[in-house]
């Protein structure tokens, strides 16, 4: 494992860059974009647990994300405190996720995706049509940001740091999760569900717990989102959001920890850049989807790693191909 040292160095550099970002970026507009990237990265990481490690592709994650956001926003608007609102939101999201999971796990593969898509759209329908509850198209304002330990989060750098802390906890949890025996059994259910059953694993339960885990972090991302925007509307629940999250996972490379983070950065930056010039974000989003699927189906991070390794091998002049290390693509 002599590769660990450069890896650790890279992580240390990345952490240092992230921690000092407000200093070297300066402008609060860019700090806010960094916060957005981190928020979406948490959602993408959560979705990646399913897409990358469980082999279950969900197109309903915007529903879970917004479930938490809406619950918290409604409770805050009703005058409850931040702690109560956030905790309730996460509990409600977990409960919704459990319902999602029980239904969607009646199928795997494409059936799973279709069911999550239908349920996500139904949650959109609630947010949009049940105006008495959700204020419909007008959305809900969130008047204040919380002040954990008495620290105000009202300006861009302080909110960035709060988001960064949550993001790092999320990454750390994911890293532990993936390396844990549970994570290994999850990838086992992805690759060989029948053999896992034969070995005595409860495949359904493993998948169910993975979905709950994913739902929890989607909920956390939803909370960050409403505190960042101080507003939530049915647009957040739309299929576009689920699709964007999926694009982040896939463009970065599913089944890796770094992939969804890079994907989130790519999508958020692109969205901001594109929106500055033209109004046609959905068009661009669709084109990127088609281009990535057609030309780089494994995602940018694994693709780059593959190219880098190939290049390294070529320089060293070794003939043995490293292709065997690449895990089978999840289906």
């Amino acid at each position, binding site marked *: 494992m002599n590769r660990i040292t450069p890896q650790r160095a890279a992580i240390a550099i990345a952490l240092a860059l992230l921690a000092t970002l407000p200093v070297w970026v300066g402008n609060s507009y860019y700090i806010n974009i960094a916060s957005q990237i981190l928020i979406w990265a948490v959602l993408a990481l959560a979705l990646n647990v399913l897409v990358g490690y469980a082999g279950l592709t969900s197109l309903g994650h915007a529903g879970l994300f917004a479930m938490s956001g809406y619950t918290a926003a409604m409770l805050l608007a009703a005058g409850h405190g931040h702690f109560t609102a956030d905790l309730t939101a996460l509990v409600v999201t977990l409960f919704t996720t459990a319902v999602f999971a029980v239904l969607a796990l009646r199928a795997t593969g494409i059936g799973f995706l279709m069911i999550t*898509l239908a349920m996500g759209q*139904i949650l959109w329908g609630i947010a949009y049509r049940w105006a008495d509850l959700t204020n419909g198209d007008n959305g809900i304002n969130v008047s204040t940001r919380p002040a954990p330990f008495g620290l105000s989060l009202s300006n861009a750098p302080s909110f960035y740091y709060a988001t960064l802390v949550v993001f790092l906890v999320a990454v750390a949890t994911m890293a532990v999760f993936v390396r844990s025996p549970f994570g290994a059994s999850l990838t086992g259910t992805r690759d060989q569900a029948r053999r896992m059953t034969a070995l005595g694993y409860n495949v359904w339960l493993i998948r169910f717990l993975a979905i709950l885990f994913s739902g929890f972090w989607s909920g956390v991302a939803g909370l960050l989102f409403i505190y960042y925007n101080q507003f939530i509307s049915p647009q957040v629940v739309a299929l576009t959001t689920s699709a964007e999250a999926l694009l982040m996972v896939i463009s970065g490379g599913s089944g890796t920890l770094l992939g969804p983070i890079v994907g989130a950065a790519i999508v958020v930056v692109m969205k901001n850049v594109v929106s500055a010039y033209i109004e046609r974000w959905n068009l661009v*989003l*669709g084109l990127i989807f088609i281009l990535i699927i057609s030309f780089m189906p494994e995602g940018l991070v694994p693709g780059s790693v593959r190219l880098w390794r190939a290049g390294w091998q070529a320089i060293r002049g070794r003939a043995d191909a490293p292709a065997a290390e690449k895990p089978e693509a999840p289906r």
Partner: protein
Amino acid sequence: MSLWLTLAVNGIALGGLLFLLSSGFSLIFGLMRIPNLMHGSFFMLGAYFGVTLLARGHNFWVAALASAAAMAVIGGLIERFLLRRLAGDQLPQVLLTLGGAFIVGDVCLMLWTGDPWQPATPDHLRGVVQVAGLYFPIFRLVIVAVAVVVAIGLWLLVDWTRLGAKIRAGVDDAPIARVVGIKVSQLFTLVFALGAALAAFGGVMGAPYLSVYPGLDFEMLPLALIVVILGGTGSLLGALVGSFLIGFLYNFGQALFPDLAYVILFLPMLLILVLRPQGLFGKVVS
């Protein structure tokens, strides 16, 4: 009493529309196993084509058929040049069609603006028929009649013709079908084109009733999904029963609990998934 009857007629009419939408989806998803997330987009794009032709003064049926023909060509091209490269790979197919759906949605917004288009019901289909003292709007009845004709036509085509037998053979075992001389690849393009055409035809039929507006695509797509989940994938009878069930439920739901109409659709899906995950008329896939 008349409220209930109106709701029932509307429910049947929406069911007819949903069948036009979901029968194509059922062909593409059930037979060819392509999870086509562009299906709602085909419906919307077809509807836009139709209203454009109607606005230029064309006959309603000419507009509907022309729009269906145009969508068949577009669908065929999409299958041949984009989806064909991903044959058998469902996840990439989903993502590709999802990307395509976003593109179609945005292009439609660009070309037809964000305002809803609602063509007038064509003259010869206006009015009501009176049966036993009750009034039925003709246009709604026509939608149902068209749906029933299409249902019978599709059933005959798939189950009773040589072409249908070839399609089924191609689906069951493509390599062997090829060996005995069936041009599976062309057949698949044909089926996809047919599914797209049906969606477009449904879109035009629905335009005077639902109107056409941005977002219609992703509003119709889950309905098609729910219908197919309810009826069972690949079952035309299932799609028919599911369509009318959802059509009724949606209309009654909207009248009785307007805020929750969309949620009520979720209930039969929930029941079916818990009790009979293969759908009402679906076969158990081993």
